């Protein structure tokens, strides 16, 4: 074997991070294949959700140029093991390389996805198109109560389901003071976030020391006990985030109040 390999592992939150250094001291390019030896799946580095070129379920294949050192890394949810990765093959590189082939994955890596940002998607996904597939009331609505802005695809899928307006027909909803919309509308993304937080908070409030009937009602609204799992943690995280935002907003507002753009002087100078 011509190539020399040097590995390091670190464990963070039960995930093993593997760093590999490949040294090619020879004057020729080497085609190297690495095999993962950890007892779990390979979690490769990704661009826009697509694994970087060369990665597959077993490991990584790449060309290490002549007299060059190449560093790569991956993660695995398996415990550390020595060695975490081995060189499965090491051959003189041939001219052919399909890394730049026009596969959809390669295109996504090179051009980037054009997916709309998460903030642009209404959380309750009120369909503004003709939306013919949405049943009127047969399917129970299941609002998302536990996620805290984690960016994942199932989220978007779930968001596409219709959600009933919260507690519109309930008496206690009237007793609870609800924030009135401000005179100046907030930016859409902020409004969306606050509405999501408010929805979660409403459920959490209704589940704070609830009567059996009230609890049953809420659980029926959100779609079962498993939907409430993690609600408290989400609401706690919301509280922390809201305080951070409030502090920053006040500081920025103070700074904004102190500014006075000297337009007249600038115009005179121009």
């Amino acid at each position, binding site marked *: 074997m011509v190539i020399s390999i040097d590995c390091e592992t670190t464990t963070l939150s039960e995930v093993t991070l593997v760093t590999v250094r490949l040294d090619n001291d020879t004057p020729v390019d080497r085609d190297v294949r690495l095999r993962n030896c950890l007892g779990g799946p390979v979690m490769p580095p990704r661009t*826009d959700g*697509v694994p970087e070129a060369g990665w597959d379920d077993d490991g990584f294949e790449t060309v290490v140029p002549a007299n060059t050192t190449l560093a790569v890394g991956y993660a695995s949810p398996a415990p550390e093991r020595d060695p975490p990765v081995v060189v499965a093959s090491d051959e003189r590189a041939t001219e052919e390389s399909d890394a730049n082939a*026009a*596969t*959809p*994955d*390669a*295109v*996504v890596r*090179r*051009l*980037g*996805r*054009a*997916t*709309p940002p*998460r903030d*642009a*998607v*209404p959380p309750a*996904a009120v*369909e*503004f*198109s*003709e*939306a*013919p*597939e949405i049943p009127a009331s047969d399917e129970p609505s299941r609002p998302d109560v536990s996620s805290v802005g984690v960016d994942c*695809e199932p989220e*978007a*899928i779930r*968001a*596409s389901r219709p959600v009933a307006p919260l507690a519109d027909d309930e008496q206690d909803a009237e007793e609870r003071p609800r924030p009135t919309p401000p005179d100046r509308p907030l930016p859409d993304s902020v409004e969306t976030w606050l509405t999501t937080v408010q929805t979660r908070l409403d459920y959490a409030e209704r589940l704070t020391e609830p009567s059996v009937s009230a609890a049953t009602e809420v659980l029926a609204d959100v779609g079962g006990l498993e939907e409430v799992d993690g609600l408290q943690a989400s609401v706690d995280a919301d509280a922390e985030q809201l305080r951070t935002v409030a502090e920053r907003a006040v500081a920025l507002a103070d700074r904004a109040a102190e500014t006075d753009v000297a337009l007249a002087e600038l115009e005179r100078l121009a």
Partner: protein
Amino acid sequence: MILAVTGGKGGVGKSTVAYNLGAALGAVVVDADLGMADLPTSPGSDLHDVLAGRADPLEAVRSMGADEGSSSFGVLPCGRSLAGARAADVTALATVLEQVEREFGAVVVDCPAGMRADAGVPLAVADCAVLVASPRPFALADAVRTRALARELDTALVGVVVNRVVDELSTETVETVAETLGAPVTTIPADPRVAVSIAEHSPLVDAAASSRAAEGITQLAAAVRSYQSR
């Protein structure tokens, strides 16, 4: 055969060309503009559902031209919602287009504007492409960029459509465009019947077969067929 109708710039008439060319070829027109779809949809699953793994591609194809004497072709429409666009995985488009091609033969993909992966993936999957440009210099610059992308992705260019031409182009201009983009040029004159062809479900080859616009589409379809039979 999978044909990509592309063009870089938005609003140059890619969708109308794709729709009318699809009708002329008897193909399935796939609306791959995941963010801003144009082709008409109807109740049922669409490309968003297919790319999110929630629907079968073949079931999402609508048959068009059921009337006697009208062209028979298909449309695979795309959803309009942002949530749907977010859930759709553009990398799944390759297998979807190939599956539709296996079942129906010819596929015409209406590509989105821009240079991101949603425009690049259909181009990479396609066997050949038609480039649509408007007759203005700035739109031509975008067409040149898309031409470069197609070349990089090894997609052959069958033809260039200079769309919505009001004043007849000089032979010199047509030659310059053909030389710059490296493919024969078809001009399609501005014709209100082209614009309404999608909304009224009446492809030009049926509604105005003798118009100069329909002639352009037929000429383009012939070029595509001759490329296919090569």
